[in-house]
């Protein structure tokens, strides 16, 4: 196959999110595993300021050590919300030679792209924002649409929606940062009162988390009033809304990945039990630094490097089956596409499995779970599959009737 026949796949990573760095790892892993015989990766790095750049230098991990100066060696690009354009428009042009126009060396102002893969985590990338841009531009893109992405991102709304479909969830309350404002009659005291008067949250310990973040950032456990103050302030550092739940002291986390299938029925992977270094909550270090560091001594492998037990032999099969059942049901209920990871928590005291959160763009795309599933799904094959599905969805959508003509405007 010659290069011109390869499909061009823009892999977008980085982004305006606290999970920026993890997204770089996910993006580069994805490109490394992609079947470059049939697909041509176009790496697109989005800076923490939200500017888009492309260039093959982005494929080297050590390139990012030179930020932000090294950006000047890249091309700045943007996806215009104009249907029919398809590719990335070049904003800056790297001049080749003194008079590029005369020598015909002018770079094209549009980089063609067949399919977009958002490899972001968190804000602006996993939450429906960039998906909205893809929709406006009418391009094929991998994974969730606007609604399922944004539902998946908000821990509170997601829980309430799933609860209404009989998925067990912990009681929770959503607090907006505005409620902390004394000018409008709020404040820490009022917020605490509202929390402690919510059914199911009357007693400590409580667990607090930013409503739309991930990667264990801004989490807090409150065993008493003083800790509650601190946890509220911590969570509001990162998000404008937080959620409070009862804290499960004796719990086991069970994660499962679900991927869209060839038809309407999705498929589920084996489960994993992530292991925190010191017991208790998983921290950012557990997820991204410790596991990877241990394994390779150098390159962090993101979620693929976490210390975890995949398909634990001694986990009661009844929980594996229940996780599968929940996973498949939740993926469908939220209308997800691509690959998601669904995190469940087993309350060991009450022997109850709860939905905790969904990651619609999970770290490392959860490929490490599929590599151990039966049948094994290679990351390479997963990528080709979700790209194929993205193209199919785009074609189906383009075939929809949208123009019904002007009738109302000119009615006499």
């Amino acid at each position, binding site marked *: 196959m010659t290069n011109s026949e390869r499909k061009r796949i823009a892999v977008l990573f980085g982004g305006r999110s606290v999970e920026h760095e993890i997204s770089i790892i996910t993006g580069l892993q994805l490109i490394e*595993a992609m*079947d470059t*015989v049939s697909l041509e990766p176009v790496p697109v790095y989005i800076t923490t300021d939200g500017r888009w750049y492309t260039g093959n230098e982005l494929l080297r991990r050590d390139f990012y050590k030179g930020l932000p100066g090294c950006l000047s060696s890249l091309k700045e690009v943007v996806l215009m919300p104009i249907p029919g354009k398809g590719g990335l428009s070049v904003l800056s042009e790297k001049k080749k030679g003194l008079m590029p126009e005369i020598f015909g060396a002018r770079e094209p102002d549009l980089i063609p792209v067949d399919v977009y893969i958002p490899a972001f985590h968190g804000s602006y990338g996993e939450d429906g924002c960039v998906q909205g841009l893809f929709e406006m531009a009418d391009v094929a893109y991998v994974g969730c649409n606007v609604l399922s992405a944004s539902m998946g991102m908000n821990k509170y709304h997601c829980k309430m929606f799933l609860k209404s479909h009989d998925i067990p969830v912990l009681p929770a309350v959503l607090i907006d940062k505005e409620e902390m404002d004394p000018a409008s009659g709020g404040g820490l005291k009022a917020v605490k009162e509202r929390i402690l008067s919510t059914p199911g949250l009357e007693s400590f310990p409580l667990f607090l988390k930013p409503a739309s973040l991930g990667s264990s950032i801004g989490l807090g456990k409150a065993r008493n009033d003083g800790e509650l103050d601190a946890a509220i302030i911590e969570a509001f550092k990162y998000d404008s809304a937080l959620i409070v739940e009862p804290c499960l002291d004796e719990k086991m986390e069970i994660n499962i990945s679900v991927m869209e299938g060839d038809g309407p029925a999705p498929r589920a992977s084996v489960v994993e039990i992530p292991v925190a270094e010191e017991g208790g909550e998983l921290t950012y270090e557990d997820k991204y630094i410790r596991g990877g560091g241990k394994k390779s001594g150098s390159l962090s492998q993101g979620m693929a490097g976490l210390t975890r037990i995949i398909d634990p032999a001694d986990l009661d099969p009844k929980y594996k089956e229940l996780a599968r059942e929940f996973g498949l049901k939740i993926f469908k209920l939220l209308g997800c596409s691509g690959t998601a990871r669904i995190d469940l928590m087993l309350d060991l005291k009450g022997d109850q499995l709860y939905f905790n959160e969904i990651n619609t763009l999970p770290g490392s795309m959860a490929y490490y779970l599929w590599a151990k599933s039966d049948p094994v799904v290679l990351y*390479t*094959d997963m990528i080709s599959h979700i790209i194929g599905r993205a193209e199919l969805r785009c074609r189906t959508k383009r075939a929809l009737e949208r123009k019904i003509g002007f009738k109302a405007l000119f009615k006499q």
Partner: protein
Amino acid sequence: MHERGTISSLEKPEIHTEKLGVKEGVPIIVMHGWGQNLESMRTLGELLGSRNPVWLMDLPGFGKSSLPAENSDTVSYAEILKRFMEANGIERAHLLGHSFGGRVSIRFTSRYASMVESVILVDSGGLKRKQDLHGKLRSMRIKFISRFCKTVDGIFRTSLYKDWFTPRFGSRDYLNAQGIMRKVLVRAVNEDVTEDASKIDRPTFILWGEKDNETPVEMGERLHSIIKDSRLTVLPGKDHFPFMGDGAHLCAHHILRFLNSCSSHDR
């Protein structure tokens, strides 16, 4: 230069292997490249283990295997592989060789075809590099300096060759190799397995990184034209180690496709 190994291990090197994957089927014996050990092939081996049993092998002189005999060449390695297969009751196997391991696979298959189900060569060694004019001039110059150093050393009892020439012009592999492994390396890089490769009549899959600087893709193309029943897949953007990191999934994808296409009875 320090030598390790005992007389007994020189005669019968102890081979360290690890067996992975499913229990039933024709096994895949995986042989790593020069200066590596079985760890470099582990992820790929694990992924292939979903279809066939996999033996990851530390080649003699690497990893946890003992040294080969003093004057070993890649043919000796093929003989060791034969003894290993016999000792472990492996009648027939798929051979997967990277770089140096590819040389051994070619040597073996041309001699013991009946013990080979198929051959998978990943960025394999075995062919001499085709040099452009610039490369030819450079190697002529290096050969001249080498001869000059040796002559001076002979006359004046100096050690110019060892102390000055080798650190400057020896390859990374050469510099890292110790004792008898240096001799094995020199033999290996100076041999050409074209004749052996032309005798291979087993289904062969040649997988190559497009950006391989150590064994350029041109060598893969030549192997493809020499080996009758062979298929070549070039991986754009990949170097001499296309199976490193998550590239293991990509290599496994192409290797499994090859295995599925060439035999349905080998599981």
